[in-house]
């Protein structure tokens, strides 16, 4: 593809969003070790450029659906850090009141329609959101993130086909980090993978280095321009690498050490930082911005820690309108 060269400001804003995601993830992993974040946690570390480059082109009223590895998507779409961290801590002032946690974090007020604990499940939901946007004649765009593991699920076929048949305003972003939980995706995938499957259904497909913010910004811009002008769905295949294990506690030691080290050395954040400085940006200014990001994340952590768990009776709220159970009854 012909990458439009984004200006230096776009890169700095993007870099700071990526750093915000990275610092949030590191804080969340730390909190998980401290037993403050419960359950499981799927870090987005190393993939930050994808959500950042894609969401940079979205309006607040555009819609986005995310995955179990969803913190980065949520931050890039504009969700505030403190209520997000509170949700991970299971606190009452969390985005979902402590009912969802990491895997179901959502902020409908910024068009973030939820992380999803089921791989590939959000693909058909995204087609539905786009179907409704089109039915209403709106110019909103729907973005659906998922991993390479999702291309082997049925909803991938059903959702992509639906989007193509109904010519819907949706961008499917396949974050190909090469792993399906604890299995190398290539060993479990026939043919050429997600991009080839999308092309076979007729979708416009963009292949991009998902670790390069400039490339992702360009891919996102092209995709949004196609989709918002009503030219149907787009599939972005973003190549990346999952630096961590599947979860915060998974060391993924079965992987080839050389490969992991090679990818760690190609960490998009320091490379992007070096590029920004080489383009003449002052380091003292960048350091000040970086400090601000780290402070924001620390404040989110502190606020979550100081917040209360939800009252236990909340477990009985928001089940359903008709037939909601009485507190403590079955």
């Amino acid at each position, binding site marked *: 593809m012909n990458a439009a060269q984004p200006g230096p400001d776009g890169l700095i804003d993007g870099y700071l969003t990526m750093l915000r995601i990275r610092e949030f993830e590191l804080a969340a992993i730390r909190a998980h070790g401290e037993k403050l974040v419960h359950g499981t946690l799927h870090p987005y570390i190393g993939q930050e450029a994808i959500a950042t480059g894609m969401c940079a082109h979205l309006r607040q009223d555009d819609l986005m659906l995310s995955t179990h590895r969803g913190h980065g998507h949520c931050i890039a779409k504009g969700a505030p850090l403190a209520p997000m961290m509170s949700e991970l801590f299971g606190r009452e002032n969390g985005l979902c009141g402590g009912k969802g946690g990491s895997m179901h974090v959502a902020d*409908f007020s910024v068009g973030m*329609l*939820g992380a999803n604990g089921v791989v590939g499940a959000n693909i*058909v*939901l995204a*087609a539905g959101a786009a179907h409704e*946007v089109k039915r209403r004649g709106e110019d909103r765009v729907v973005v659906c993130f998922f991993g390479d593991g999702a291309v082997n699920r049925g*909803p991938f076929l059903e959702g992509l086909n*639906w989007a193509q048949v109904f010519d819907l305003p949706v961008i499917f972003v396949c974050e190909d980090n090469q792993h399906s939980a604890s299995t190398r995706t290539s060993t479990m995938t026939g043919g050429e993978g997600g991009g080839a499957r999308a092309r076979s259904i007729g979708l416009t497909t963009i292949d991009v280095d998902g670790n390069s913010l400039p490339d992702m910004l360009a891919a996102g811009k092209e995709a949004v321009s196609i989709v918002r002008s009503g030219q149907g769905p787009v599939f972005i295949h973003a190549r990346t690498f999952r630096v961590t294990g599947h979860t915060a506690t998974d060391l993924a030691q079965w992987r080839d050490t050389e490969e992991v080290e090679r990818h760690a050395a190609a960490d998009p954040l320091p490379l992007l930082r070096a590029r920004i400085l080489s383009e003449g940006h002052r380091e003292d200014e960048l350091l000040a911005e970086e400090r601000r990001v780290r402070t924001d994340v620390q404040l989110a952590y502190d606020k979550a820690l100081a917040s209360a768990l939800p009252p236990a009776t909340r477990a009985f709220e928001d089940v359903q309108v008709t037939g909601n159970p009485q507190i403590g009854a079955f």
Partner: protein
Amino acid sequence: MTNLIAMTAAEASTLALREEFALDENVWALGEDIGRGGVFGQYAGLQDEFGPQRVVDTPISEAAILGVAVGAAMVGSRPVVEMRFSDFALCAMDEMINQAAKARYMFGGQSKVPIVVREPTGLWRSAAAQHSQSLEAWYAHMPGLIVVCPSTPADIRGLLKASIRADDPVVFMEPKGQWQRTGEVDLDDQEPYELGKAAGRREGDDVTIVSWSTQVHVALEAAERLAEQSIESDVIDLRTIFPWDKDSVSQSVRRTGRLLVVHEAVAVGGFGGEIASWISEHEFHHLKGPVARLGAPRIPVGYAPNLEDQIRVTAENIVDRVIRMINEGEEETQV
């Protein structure tokens, strides 16, 4: 004022949709072949009237049909989802159970999923194992869902309207053997019926028979025969399986002292078990004898008519069971 017109269940369905489509632009329908009226004619003429954007023909992609409805509902519409046969909805269970039923809760009330998932259900002569099941108890088990099992044309109209207006996902299971059954519908009464409210179909003081869907008609036939033997049955059509009308059943049982629950679904793990245990726990002192259940044996539905009949709870089965209940009670009294 009433304006009673006889119509089939399929006609009552299109009437309800036509009325709700006209009232609310956010209501639309999607499913395979519904532009041609649907498998049972329950969408007849609607695509001509409202256009292909409101009555949407879809690929054979059950997960996408239901998932698209969930996504569209989260953005503000009220889709009516056609699954053709309840059996096919099983291809979309993640969308139903993990997505539709849980979105409101797991997102802390930020979202709602006001969809109606229509699942024609039950026996349909020799449709065999994959087109005949009654799975309402599965859905009743799932927090977040409303489950409706109507038995008459008037209820299909009134309860479908209520389901469309409800802010929860509703599983709406029409008895597929009853689409051509005719019943009176009041054209002037356009109000939706109340979800969770049972209907008394016959009054009596000797035994309470609770049922739903096709089985209600069998229960009424049995009640007729029992009346010939001077046994008067209070027949309750539950209509909504969840939330179910505990008050109506309790009040009836307090009067009759006997409860028989009858359904077409497999008895083991069927919803009759929930009703039986609830009444046993809460109305024990009003009971003259043990609560009884009738349902299908735990076998798949066979194809050959005589194999399929092994599933069926007949009017004769109900009559026999009620007579036994009454005799058992009398024997105990004599002791």
